[in-house]
């Protein structure tokens, strides 16, 4: 139905901030189509429809190998980021300069890096920083974005204009550049500045979805009817809007989680993200890049771990989106 889409919306959706940020945008533009699917599951239906959507989606997910593989991977990654000792016995920061640049051998399955640190142990411990940054940033973005978008959509008018312009402002700042500027002045050895920065620049993505869902829901006949029957604003927002907004937010948030992990690594690689002694794949890759000519393995292990982690979340988001969007089946 070519006349049903609003190309102006798409033009906004596709605006991609720099590098890693682009992923979230596309995810969002895809998720927005899903939300706008006419007669689609998220569209409008009463609660029953929403329930069958989830059941349907779950039925489809259970049989999807992509979903199974990515969930198992993520489960494993979360597990080792909580208890890295499960599979790595050493201390990632106990390094012997004398052992520098060893190739794989007994005691050092992946070899050692320029400082003589064990690459295997550091690769395992690197999951913790990545996963925690990813999860914290995603939670923050989802919460802040839902609130902002919900407010903009619900109150409309003046509020909506202000919040939408504000979202545009954050969109206009290239992500990696903004990160460099912001994080080079806020120096800390914790993950919080990085997380805070991601929330600061990330919320507009969720906010647009939440806003769209609220506006769609507000126009629905059954919400109009509920209003006419005297349902209170908050009650309506929770009962009718939430089910519509949850699915696209979940999809976008999952994919975004993967891209935040990539962004954290990029910023750490540039020297402004996480800082030692925090073990981060980005830092290790940056260090290893100096020796790529002779010791490529030092770069390959953390780079592989990073890529697989990002892939796992993006695959999960992709599978969930397919399951929730019957149009693309």
């Amino acid at each position, binding site marked *: 139905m070519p006349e049903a889409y609003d190309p102006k919306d798409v033009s906004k959706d596709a605006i991609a901030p720099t590098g890693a940020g682009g992923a979230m945008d596309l995810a969002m533009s895809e998720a927005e189509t899903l939300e706008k699917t006419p007669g689609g599951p998220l569209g409008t239906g009463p609660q029953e429809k929403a329930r069958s959507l989830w059941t349907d989606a779950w039925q489809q997910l259970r049989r999807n190998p992509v979903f199974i593989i990515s969930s198992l991977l993520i489960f494993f990654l979360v597990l080792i980021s909580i208890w890295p000792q499960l599979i790595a016995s050493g201390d990632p920061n106990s390094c012997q300069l004398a052992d520098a640049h060893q190739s794989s051998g007994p005691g050092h399955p992946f070899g050692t890096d320029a400082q003589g640190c064990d690459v295997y142990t550091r690769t395992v411990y690197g999951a913790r920083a990545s996963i925690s940054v990813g999860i914290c940033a995603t939670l923050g973005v989802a919460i802040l974005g839902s609130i902002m978008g919900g407010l903009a959509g619900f109150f409309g008018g003046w509020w909506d204009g202000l919040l939408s312009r504000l979202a545009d402002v954050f969109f206009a700042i*290239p992500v990696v550049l903004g990160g460099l500027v912001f994080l080079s002045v806020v120096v800390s050895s914790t993950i919080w500045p990085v997380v805070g920065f991601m929330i600061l620049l990330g919320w507009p993505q969720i906010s647009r979805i939440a806003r769209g869902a609220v506006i769609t829901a507000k126009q629905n006949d059954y919400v109009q009817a509920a209003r006419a029957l005297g349902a209170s604003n908050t009650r309506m927002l929770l009962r009718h809007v939430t089910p519509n907004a949850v699915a696209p937010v979940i999809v976008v948030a999952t994919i975004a989680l993967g891209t935040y992990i990539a962004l954290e690594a990029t910023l750490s690689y540039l020297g*402004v993200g996480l800082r030692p002694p925090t073990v981060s794949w980005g830092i290790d890759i940056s260090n290893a890049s100096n020796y790529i000519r002779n010791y490529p393995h030092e770069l390959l292990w953390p780079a592989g771990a990073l890529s697989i982690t990002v892939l796992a979340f993006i695959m999960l988001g992709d599978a969930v989106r397919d399951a929730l969007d019957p149009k693309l089946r």
Partner: protein
Amino acid sequence: MGRYVIRRLFQMIPVFIGATFLIFVMVYALGDPVAALFGDKAPDPATAARIREDLGLDKPLWQQYLHYMGNIFRGDFGTAFNGQKVTELMATAFPVTAKLTFVAIVIEIIVGIALGVVSGLKRGRPLDTSLLVLTLIVISVPTFVSGYLLQYLFGLKLGWVRPTVSTDAPLNELILPGIVLALVSLAYVTRLTRTSIAENARADYVRTAVAKGLPRRRVITKHLLRNSLIPVVTFIGADIGALMGGAIVTERIFNIHGVGYQLYNGILRGNTPTVVGFVTILVIVFLVANLLVDLLYAVLDPRIRYA
């Protein structure tokens, strides 16, 4: 059409002010440019105060911002602390990054759209499925990882290209960095084109075109592609601005002396005028690219043109 352009221009103004002010605040309020000037040494308080006054740093932030923006619109981006004019830095850096972005965009358009069309037309077939998986993998590998991998493979192992780019950055040396820069966007263009093609292939007007007895080739190029590329064009247009800003990682890997390189040095050395100047230009590029996309949109889609 004219009114549409003017409306879009007016909408850009608050976004421009907001974004530049935000950057300005980050740089000036959070950091201390004078301290940065002295590097690791602690500056003498009196000297520091004098420098602050000279640079107008003692005034309220909004006044500094207005003053700075006023200068920018007169073409004065200030002077880097080492005495070099920021505009001179820009004159050397922007052409290099523009060339790199150009290479990336061309690759993104040609390869991305071609793959997307093939995938969309063969939807559900093995080729489509494998392309989809491949794009997911490409999206998941951060630029700095794929950059080093390709540099290692083609530059060091196979020796097909120079691993780093020379100072004047000739186009042929920018092909590998261009691929690296384009890679993630390319995967998006592929996916976006694929979805769009697959969706439009079922559209009624495509069925009409077939019923008219048009050759398949014409149905695809004249009817299907034109409609399907509208969202893709938007993405690519917006990506121009994003790639220029994102080139920082690629430029670092391949040692290209472009915008990213200058900015990176500026940030590491706390060189405020350079940073704010470059970022301001990038925000402008981003906004103008988006404006152009909107206009292109109106050209491609008569429903907007005559709305």
